[in-house]
């Protein structure tokens, strides 16, 4: 763990990413304290441009709601969906990949064809269909986004398991009569996990972008302020008040860049590069 932190700290990208994410996470968590206003409340004159009024630093939207408050609450929605979908995708993918790799034969064949099927359907289209069928809510959106992202972890976990199960320590565990389930959870999984974890940042980033696109199309969580939803609302005023769609977009870009940079540090810390080379 200590070595892990040291390797992470030696990567400038990782530190930069961690700082960006820390800032966003703090803003999201502390939102009710630093900006006590209701993001849905009408607080001022509509369409005040940014930097014109000190009480509304980023201006107000067409209904007179504070853009900064909405931006911070949007971070909450984005990060929640991004992290939970990635968690769902990685847990489901690792589970399926491990089962396929350990079971082999027909089970492996069947599971991998399901993975193939999920890979040839555009993830965004699948999420769109799932949300439109099940109705937009936070849980459905998390699941929908996760549905399009679990195949990568599944493939990687399976490949790792296939190579790990031939190693000596697994063979020894088998010889001393360890139960197959125990071998799976105590010997194979912990060693198959690091490479899968290197996918975390890519999956979280993709999840944030898919959530944004869904809410841009009006399929986001109807009870939350989302960056995608803010961009969609500002779209009709692109000519007169472009800041309404530009500001939440900048929030999205900085969040995703932060996630990618953090991921570079993570790859460094998990020393995936070192192992591959």
């Amino acid at each position, binding site marked *: 763990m200590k070595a892990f932190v040291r390797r992470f700290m030696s990567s400038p990208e990782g530190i930069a990413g961690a700082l960006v994410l820390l800032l966003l996470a703090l803003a999201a968590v502390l939102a009710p304290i630093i900006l006590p206003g209701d993001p849905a409340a009408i607080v001022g004159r509509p369409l005040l441009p940014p930097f014109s009024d000190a009480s509304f630093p980023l201006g107000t939207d067409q209904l007179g709601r504070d853009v900064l408050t909405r931006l911070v609450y949007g971070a909450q929605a984005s990060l929640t969906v991004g992290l939970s979908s990635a968690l769902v995708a990685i847990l489901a993918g690792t589970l399926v990949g491990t089962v396929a790799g350990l079971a082999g034969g027909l089970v492996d064949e069947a599971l991998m064809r399901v993975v193939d*099927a999920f890979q040839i359907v555009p993830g965004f289209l699948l999420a769109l269909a799932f949300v439109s069928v099940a109705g937009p809510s936070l849980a459905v959106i998390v699941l929908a986004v996760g549905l399009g992202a679990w195949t990568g972890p599944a493939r990687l976990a399976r490949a790792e398991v296939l190579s790990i199960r031939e190693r000596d320590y697994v063979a020894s565990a088998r010889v001393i009569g360890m139960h197959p389930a125990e071998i799976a959870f105590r010997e194979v999984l912990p060693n198959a996990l690091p490479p899968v974890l290197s996918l975390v940042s890519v999956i979280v980033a993709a999840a944030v972008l898919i959530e944004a696109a869904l809410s841009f199309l009006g399929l986001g969580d109807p009870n939350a302020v989302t960056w995608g939803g803010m961009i969609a609302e500002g779209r009709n005023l692109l*000519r007169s008040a472009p800041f309404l769609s530009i500001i939440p977009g900048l929030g999205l870009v900085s969040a995703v860049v932060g996630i990618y940079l953090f991921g570079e540090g993570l790859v460094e810390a998990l020393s995936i590069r070192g192992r591959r080379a």
Partner: protein
Amino acid sequence: MHRAWRLTKRRLVASIPVLAIVILGTFLLMELAPGDAVDAYLVSLGGGDAGLAETLRQSYGLDQSAISRLWLYVSSLARLDLGWSIVFNRPILDVVLERLPNTLWLMGAATALAFTLGSLLGIIAGARPGSAVDRVLSIGSLTLYAVPGFWLGLVLILVFSVQLRWLPTSGIETIASGKTGIARVLDIARHLVLPVASLGFIYLALFLRMMRAGMGEVWRQDFVLAAKAKGLSRRRIVIHHVARNALLPLVTMLGLQAATMLGGSVVIESVFAIPGFGRLAQEAVAGRDAPLLMAIIIVSAVLVILVNLLVDIAYAWLDPRVGGSEAAGR
């Protein structure tokens, strides 16, 4: 050519079970939906009595068990009957075929842009790893890769349509302009510039990063050392030895990205109001047209299979080591 044919046959056979799983998945998703196609159809008509609903259900076989409905679904798909669209009140296949060309143009142009410009910039970045140019391109591509396509589209509209007034904001061509021949082609091309850029730039960043990473690996290979020892110029080494060998993996990426790009075109076509296949998906969602949405999923799966087949054939053609004995063996 014989080799390509064998490869095609093998890939198509392998994709049958995968496509079957996709079809089963869409069927289950439709079962999950509250109400059925008849309910949605009656709503779109503005209501109807229970008797009409009963007759319609019987004529579509919706009153039968799930198994026989699945059988009905699969057998009509096998006859290329994708069902009836509620929103358009027309056969789904007709609507899909009408919309597909616009999306294929959009995706084709975006792929071409991303691949050529991305690999070119990747070669420039990878030619001197660690140089200032390399750093700028790396940071730039990372940022570009984080930009959501639909937002980029809005920003491009703001700059090039609203401020500079160079390009049209939406649509695929000027409506009722009466343009024909070359003039019409140019008109369509003008309309496609911004959507293609919005869709393609993310992949441009991806190809740039892959090319650069690939070149980094090749620089360490023995034959590059040998080329250096022979005293070849740096330019020659970069182009003939390093870039050439790093280019091949990018071709496989084309196939892998086909599915995500198709998903991306849903949002881009909505931003630019392009009457394409992607926008059709959004219209199906807005109109609660589940049969149309499921047909779109199946058609995109078929499209992705075909694109991957083309990429495989191209790859086998570029790399003679692939597909020969392996194809016969499996």
